[in-house]
């Protein structure tokens, strides 16, 4: 399994886009830590990058890479290799490369300047979101035969998770403000990995007190081992389910 992955990684890390992405993250992280007098503020600004830029880059890059690798995948399929192995290797290679870019660009600065709870939760969230949005990219790519359609649909997905979803949550909160919504809000946020990651980081940053009694509940929950387990499992589900679905489709698909 790892053989093919290794070559995919080898190919991608020499990709100019990935290099530019790594450099961008590195420059932004370092300058944020240099400019902001307080590490918490830098982490908050980095959080915006991790929640917005990182999913966008991951999903678009993975999609484009998939379509560019189409003929290569075809060639692999003519070899005595199982389909699951091929698509999974492609996924693993893409995801690993993006992870490496993230860990180099954001991980190292964070570990140098802010290796605390909030920094680590930022890295955790970033890694999860990279894997999740690569997963989603593969799902969208195997579903859409056409590159333009594929890229269109992943942009839409990104738009949905980054922007539209929270708008919908806001609408729900206002339309049902007469009901006790604490649990439902929590559930709703868990259904969007970007929101879940954001809350996970924010609670580590002591924002919870702003949320009153509910905030304290959330903080207790997310701060505990159960909370970490909950967050991790939801994140893992977000990684695994789209990927499994993509593999299923790929296995039945005509190339």
């Amino acid at each position, binding site marked *: 399994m790892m053989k093919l992955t290794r070559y995919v990684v080898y190919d991608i890390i020499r990709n100019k886009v990935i290099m530019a992405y790594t450099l961008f993250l590195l420059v932004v992280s370092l300058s944020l830590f240099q400019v902001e007098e307080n590490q918490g503020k830098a982490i908050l600004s980095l959080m915006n990058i991790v929640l917005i830029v990182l999913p966008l880059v991951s999903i678009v890059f993975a999609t484009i890479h998939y379509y*560019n690798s*189409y003929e290569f995948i*075809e*060639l*692999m*399929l003519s070899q*005595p290799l199982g389909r699951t192995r091929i698509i999974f290797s492609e996924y693993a290679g893409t995801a690993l490369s993006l992870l490496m870019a993230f860990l180099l660009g954001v991980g190292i600065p964070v570990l140098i300047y802010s290796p605390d709870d909030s920094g680590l939760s930022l890295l955790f969230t970033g890694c999860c979101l990279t894997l999740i949005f690569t997963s989603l990219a593969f799902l969208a790519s195997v579903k859409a035969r056409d590159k333009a359609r594929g890229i269109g649909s992943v942009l839409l997905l990104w738009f949905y998770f980054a922007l539209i979803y929270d708008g919908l949550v806001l609408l729900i909160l206002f339309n049902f403000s007469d009901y006790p919504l604490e649990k439902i809000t929590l559930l709703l946020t868990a259904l969007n990995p970007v929101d879940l990651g954001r809350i996970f980081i924010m609670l580590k940053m002591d924002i919870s007190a702003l949320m009153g009694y509910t905030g304290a509940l959330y903080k207790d929950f997310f701060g505990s081992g159960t909370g970490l387990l909950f967050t991790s499992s939801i994140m893992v589900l977000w990684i695994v389910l789209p990927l499994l679905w993509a593999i299923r489709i790929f296995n039945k698909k005509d190339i």
Partner: protein
Amino acid sequence: MIRIEAISKKFRKLQALDNISAQFEKGQAISLIGPNGSGKTTLIKCILGMVRPDKGNIYVGGHPVKQEHEYRRMIGYMPQIGRYPDNMRIGQLFSMMKQLRNDKQGGLDETLVEQFGLKKIYDKPMRTLSGGTRQKVSAALAFLFDPAILILDEPTAGLDPLSAEILKARIIEQKKKDKLILITSHILSDLDELTTHVMYMQDGKMVFLKGLDTLQEQTGELKIGKAIARIMKADGDQEDWIKKMFTPSNEQKIY
């Protein structure tokens, strides 16, 4: 070696393959010809397991194509368009393939690698290669593992005359080694000399599959390529023409 049993395949509204049955044996060199979109590539992809037929079965060396992928160890495939990971070097591509196939017997055939002079450019990344060079790489890969079956999709299309000759010579050599060779082409001309059988397809249907000698006998043309090319250019009435020519009842009347 390859047995095709009544396979059909529909892409949306397009009937790509329509109830095709055929049997290819070792020692044969089959020219798969027909106009664009006649289903040649689809048929090859069915044999390689890339496209799953709606109906019918294909067996390669006795193994059903549907369930397995190990049978592909017997096949060397040269795609119509070879595209490889941009940043992979030629040498890496070859070593990757060797690792992936992991053939125990070690019967590597690097004749083409040498004849095409690929070793000298082992360090070049794939993205810098011209279409012709990529074709050479594809060809060398197809022959690399000394497979019992060679499937070549438009093998000489992008090659310069010299390289085309080298490739042709290699194909002839392989034929002499009692291998099964399947070649698709729009026209036959440059592959006349090595063809033993012609399979003509149109609109997803197999119009005929005959030995070259039979064909020559029936048409009275030695240069079968010219005849077929003329058939294909004769647009509207070609179907009738071919039918007249090859349906058994009419056989005697022609020429």
